[in-house]
């Protein structure tokens, strides 16, 4: 049971390049989320999705694009990477139904933008 996986685990890129971070979950959870973790800010929500083809902005969506064509995948794209997007990115998923269900997190992707 793989659960929720992210790839790549580490990525170094240059300013202006497009980068896509992948997230895959094997539970068929309806909800999926992207967070970024930065020192002093904790976890901040970038985008989330309630189901395939349904996405919503979170707290810090600028500079990011998401899609959800399949329930199990939720890629996050940085269209033109900036240094301020250097961060650790976490994907998470949650079962449909009550918000009392906990979120499950992937291992994270450490992104460095030079």
């Amino acid at each position, binding site marked *: 049971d793989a659960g929720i996986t992210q790839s790549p685990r580490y990525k170094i890129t240059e300013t202006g390049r497009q980068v896509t971070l992948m997230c895959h979950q094997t539970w068929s959870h309806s909800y999926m989320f992207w967070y970024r973790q930065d020192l*002093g800010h904790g*976890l901040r929500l970038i985008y989330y999705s309630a189901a395939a083809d349904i996405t919503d902005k979170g707290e810090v969506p600028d500079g990011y694009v998401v899609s959800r064509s399949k329930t199990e995948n939720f890629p996050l794209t940085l269209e033109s990477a900036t240094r301020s997007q250097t961060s650790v990115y976490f994907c*998470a998923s949650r079962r449909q139904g009550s*918000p*009392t269900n906990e979120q499950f997190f992937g*291992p994270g992707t450490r992104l460095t933008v030079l």
Partner: protein
Amino acid sequence: AQSVAQPEDQVNVAEGNPLTVKCTYSVSGNPYLFWYVQYPNRGLQFLLKYITGDNLVKGSYGFEAEFNKSQTSFHLKKPSALVSDSALYFCAVHRDSGNTPLVFGKGTRLSVIA
């Protein structure tokens, strides 16, 4: 809008002593409250949650948390700390209505000293 405050960036405690990691929240409506733990280079792991009922909630690894509605707090506790408890701890809150994402605090780093 819901919010979470973790007033301490760092908590230090001696092994064997009791530990407390503080969390206060602000929501309109009934809160659903969660604690997560993050070990180095790992994703977040669910520890425990309060939905309704008994104000003292027991979770994984011997942790418990006390919900206090009048003080809008949900402090994480453990009677006897272990060195292996050293990690980053996040409190999170949900409003009781709607399938909105969790809102996380900034995290508290716990160091247990042998």
